[in-house]
């Protein structure tokens, strides 16, 4: 059983047509195994987090009780995107597991909502937020090495506190960007294969091979998102992460959590990046 299904075109060419849908179960099971593995690791093996000192304590007196983390616009984007993503997964995969309903129209409408929200986010993050705060920097990489060495029992200096986002968060964002942009771009082109109110249907836009690869990429990214979203929801409801989840609802972090996990020199409590502050 291959991961891609092939068909013969009317011109006798073998072309891919879509992924094999057992991959949906592979992704779901992989997500579930990660959840179980992580929960066991946290419960039985993980050591308490220890960070290097991040600066003189007098600097902290100006930090407010509630540290702003996510603006209203950022939170709205997140929840609109989450709703669209769940709608897309439900409309895409429920029919594959036997729940039949007219899914295509709901699917492309949810896709349009997702696309609009992502476009908004790209503009918002590029011009109105600290764009680089979500991308790994040199300190993240160094600290990942330190944390790994300490976790495996080797000597290493304590890692520094995080900037606005921990490295895991940044890596997750990177993978979601890849998967999200893949489904979004391929999905927009795939809308030319069905009838929508947005543009005339044109199945000749690409050749069979290109269309086939597009369907395969859409499918791979789609099933990948099953595991990714399972992992995301799992972390959102873990007790130690609830404070972060709440910040995505209310917009702020508690001062204590901020001081315990974040480095004011890398992410200032007024919402600006420490980097920007240091440069100014």
């Amino acid at each position, binding site marked *: 059983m291959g991961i891609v*299904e092939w*068909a*013969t075109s*009317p011109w*006798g060419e073998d072309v891919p*047509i*879509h992924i094999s849908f057992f991959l949906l179960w592979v992704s779901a099971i992989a997500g579930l195994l990660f959840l179980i593995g992580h929960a066991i690791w946290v419960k039985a093996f993980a050591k308490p987090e220890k960070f290097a000192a991040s600066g003189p304590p007098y600097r902290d007196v100006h930090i407010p009780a509630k540290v702003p983390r996510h603006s209203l616009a950022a939170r709205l984007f997140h929840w609109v995107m989450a709703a669209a993503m769940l709608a897309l997964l439900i409309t895409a995969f429920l*029919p594959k597991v*036997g729940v*039949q*309903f*007219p*899914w*295509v*129209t709901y699917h492309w409408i949810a896709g349009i909502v997702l696309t609009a929200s992502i476009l908004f986010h790209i503009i918002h993050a590029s011009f109105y937020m600290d764009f680089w705060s979500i991308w790994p920097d040199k300190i993240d990489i160094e600290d990942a090495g330190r944390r790994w060495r300490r976790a495996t029992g080797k000597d290493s200096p304590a890692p520094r506190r995080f900037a606005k986002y921990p490295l895991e968060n940044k890596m997750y964002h990177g993978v979601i960007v890849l998967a999200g942009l893949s489904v979004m771009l391929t999905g927009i082109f795939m809308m030319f*294969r*069905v*009838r929508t109110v947005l543009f005339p*249907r044109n*199945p*000749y836009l690409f050749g*069979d091979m290109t*269309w*086939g690869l597009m*369907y395969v990429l859409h499918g791979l990214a789609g099933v990948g998102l099953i595991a990714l979203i399972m992992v995301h929801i799992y972390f959102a409801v873990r007790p130690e992460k609830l404070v972060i989840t709440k910040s995505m609802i209310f917009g702020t972090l508690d001062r204590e959590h901020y001081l315990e996990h974040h480095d004011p020199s890398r992410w200032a409590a007024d919402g600006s990046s420490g980097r920007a502050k240091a440069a100014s």
Partner: protein
Amino acid sequence: MAIVRDIMPAFELFQPATTDDAVGLLAKYGRDAWVMGGGLDTFDWLKDRIKRPSVVVDLSQVNDLTGIRPMGGGLEIGALTTLTEIVRNPVVKEKFGLLHQAAELVASPQIRNQGTIGGNVSQDARCWYYRGGWKCYRAGGNICFADTPSAINREHAILDADRCVAVNPSDTAPALIALEAQMVIRNRKGERVVEAEDYFIGPATDITRMTILKPGDLLTAIRIPDKWAGATFYFEKVRDRQVWDFPLVNVASAAVYSGGNIERIRIAVNGVAAHPVRLKAVEDAVRGKPRNAATADMAGQLAIQGAEPLRYNGYKVPLLRNLVKRSIRGVEEATWAS
């Protein structure tokens, strides 16, 4: 490259003698099993080597699936009852003439002798791209070859197309919907009864199936209640060859008139979508109205709302409109202006 046809691929043949045995086999083999009634749809698929089931369950020995029995004031028709038996049945002819007319217009006498009512309502789409073995949407692929700018799609859908534009080719299906028939389905979990209207599904719901039957399901009987017994019926089928063809469009209506007004009515059409279409909006619009040319005209116009013809099937729009008009008022009201 030449393709060898007319030699069926090998399969394991089961010929159960009872419905229970048939259902047991279907449960055991699931997706691998192919249900064969009269064989008219089956042998096309098998001889063309397009469908290759590993197991064929031939129902021809299951006697309890045949026959027409009274039930309440209506009838229960075994799914394996031939169309000829239905045409010849005096009760069907007297009380449910709509089904009589529809069954009589299916294909040819030879085919009606062999073809079953269950097979007629459950047969697969006749789109030649699909039947030709191309990996289209309905065959599990990602394209409809009939819905491309250069496709030959004269027989295809004008309503409710969703990626696939194939149509349902059954003549008896719209008649059964108009008569408010119910389909009796069995599987290993038991029996369920669904309205004929809900038995058929379009590509938006499942692009690879024409009915709600899933692997393991068996249509065992069709029940026709007495709600429309003796009503005024109208069935008309337009086809290319008058002696033997699938419908381009057909219409079935059952109506009760009172004082020249339409007291109640049900209308269904087929050949215009991947499922028989009950024209509920038309029914609602004409109910209580006088049975005259104006009402028929309104019904015809309403029936074609939302029609989206393809390159070669634009003729189906006026055809549908006029058939619906005729189903309300009668043949003399037809106007063939587009």
